[in-house]
């Protein structure tokens, strides 16, 4: 028994030796980095995502995209001003939980020398991570949309559209469907549902959109029929549903069963991920939503989409796509800072001004941060499910496909 154990250890270390030797040989023969005495130290980038728990599905996709982006940058020669330093992704699972997010962000910062962090997909988690980063003076860049992230923060950067802009875009999109949009807003009676729908209600008069029904429902219902019955009676010609995946699936199916001819806008989040189509199937065709990123925006976005598809089998969804751009923004800042020091990276990020390349992959194609960390050019893009894929249809300058009439 003892001998057995010994031999396992021996063979393991032999394997390790071979692996190391192989790597050394490979490095020597290809030698992408010019050897100047010592190879440059890698630059650590923290990645905070929920890869377990209720948000795991999206979190796992984010991690795949983050890894892909880092590989792309490293293969292209790393950070040149740092002697070709490679990016090293330090991934941490925040478990879809606010308490865990706080401790994990703390742990990540104290146990690694980080130059920057990106995360966490869900606004509720990002708000916490951002607080920790502000205190530790490490810059964090995020695709989360909460407007709260731009208040009283100096190390937090949000390159994409804000929640308030999403609501506005959604209202404007209802005019694509009808000259006199009559909108029914149904929302789950949670913090997320209430705040999002109130945003819609406040902005509607200014956009000339009439809201004919404004109704909270109990999240996780067993049957959407009574609710849709009510929508039908309201005479609405457009339906905004502020819901998580399961309720939305029931709503979409019930609208079909009722035979109700109404344009559905499902907003963002769970609505613009490949899984939505997998669950709803053909019924998703023609449904509209809003996103802060879409893979058909420009050539670069399409390029990373192809690569991501090759790796995961799914198209590159909103949040993960934006994450690739964010990684390039960090790389751009590192390049200009010429230092891995988080304070210098923060200063370089705040001076970021790009309009080409992977870092500029955003609706509008330009990124420049204002004093509140908001991208001054940031805007959302209206999308529509077409042939099992998401096509950009709004606004006109961002449209990449004609709107499908439903």
């Amino acid at each position: 028994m003892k001998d057995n154990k010994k031999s396992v250890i021996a063979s393991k270390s032999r394997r390790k030796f071979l692996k190391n030797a192989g790597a050394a040989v490979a490095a020597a023969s290809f030698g992408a980095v010019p050897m100047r005495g010592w190879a440059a130290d890698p630059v650590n980038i923290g990645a905070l995502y929920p890869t377990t728990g209720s948000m795991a599905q999206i979190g796992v996709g984010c991690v795949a995209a983050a890894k892909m982006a880092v590989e792309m940058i490293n293969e292209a020669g790393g950070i040149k001003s740092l002697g070709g330093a490679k990016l090293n992704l330090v991934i941490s699972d925040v478990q879809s939980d606010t308490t865990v997010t706080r401790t994990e962000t703390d742990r990540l910062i104290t146990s690694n020398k980080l130059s920057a962090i990106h995360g966490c997909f869900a606004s509720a988690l990002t708000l916490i991570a951002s607080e920790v980063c502000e205190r530790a003076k490490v810059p964090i860049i995020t695709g989360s949309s909460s407007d709260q992230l731009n208040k009283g923060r100096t190390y937090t950067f949000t390159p994409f559209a804000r929640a308030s802009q999403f609501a506005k875009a959604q209202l404007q999109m209802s005019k694509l469907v009808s000259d006199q949009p009559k909108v029914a807003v149904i929302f789950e009676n949670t913090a997320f549902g209430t705040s999002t729908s109130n945003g819609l209600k406040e902005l509607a008069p200014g956009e000339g959109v009439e809201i004919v029904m404004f109704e909270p429902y109990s999240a996780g219902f067993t049957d959407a029929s009574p609710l849709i019955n009510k929508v039908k009676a309201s005479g609405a010609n457009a339906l905004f549903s502020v819901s998580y995946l399961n309720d939305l699936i029931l709503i979409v199916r019930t609208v079909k069963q009722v035979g109700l001819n109404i344009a559905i806008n499902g907003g963002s989040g769970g609505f613009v991920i490949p899984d939505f189509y997998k669950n709803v199937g053909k019924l998703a065709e023609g449904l509209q939503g809003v996103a802060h990123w879409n893979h058909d925006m420009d050539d670069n976005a399409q390029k990373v989409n192809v690569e991501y598809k090759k790796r995961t089998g799914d198209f590159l969804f909103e949040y993960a796509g934006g994450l690739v751009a964010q990684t390039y923004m960090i790389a751009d800042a590192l390049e200009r800072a010429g230092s891995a020091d988080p304070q210098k990276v923060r200063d370089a990020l705040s001076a970021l001004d790009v309009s080409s390349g992977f870092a500029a992959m955003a609706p509008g194609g330009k990124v420049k941060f204002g004093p509140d960390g908001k991208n001054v050019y940031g805007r959302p893009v209206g999308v529509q499910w077409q042939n099992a894929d998401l096509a950009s249809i709004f606004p006109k300058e961002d449209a990449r496909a004609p709107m499908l009439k439903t």
Partner: protein
Amino acid sequence: MLETVAQAVINGLLIGGIYALVSIGVTLIFGVVKIVNFAQGEFVMIGMYITFFLFSTFGIDPLLALFVSMPVLFVLGALIQHFLIRRVLGPNDMPQIFLTFALSLLLLNLSLLLFSANYRTVHTSYSDEAFHFGGLYVPEAKLIAFVVAMALSAALWVFLHATDLGKAMRAASQKPDVAILMGINPNRVFAVAFGAALALAGAAGSLLMPFYSAYPFVGQVFVLMAFVAVVLGTLGNVIGALVASLMMGVAESLGIQFVGADSGLIVVFAMLLLTLAFKPNGLGGGRVR
């Protein structure tokens, strides 16, 4: 207006049929074995996952999956009764409550581990279709679920009243001591009752799958309604649970229609409170059948 009310009643009856399958299971276990099964919802969840995997792996229609989910859950139920419940039966209720509650937590977390929190949906040719009559509509998948649920309830009633085993079950529930003297083996009867109750939960799972998503917490949604129906229809009363479930479905639907979409449950609970105030033993009038 009339059309809106009629549609609300149809919607309520259809979902009430599903509530009935879950609540009849709870009430059967309570009536015969005299315990409250807090894990009943989790067995609906297991029935849904069985149906989902049969569909996604072998392409078996959810309605045919009924013939797998029901026997599997029947055997599971008999085993649980024999190896777990039997040991805690006695004058003290607490161990039974803890046991079924622990079972619920165990199954919940086990399914989270095995299946993850993702939603799983099944698409059949009848999933999104509906029959239309004038301005009214009846979704096909729900109509099928309702008809099968009613047929299974009727079959259970016939079993309890027309077969020796069914009669033995009722006897063991009414007077266990006398039943033993008459040569009835209560353990065997209890195992069959527990198995039958879980088979109904499995049936509910299979019937739900064409129009509802499976996820680890799905049972909790239905078990709450089931408990209300069981109390409303008198504990242990199968017909009472059936009628109460249908009433609750309709009350919920009318509540959403005319009070507010987040008030469906308020109407249901108001109905429960009023009933208990005037008929403390529930609508069954205290007669346990």
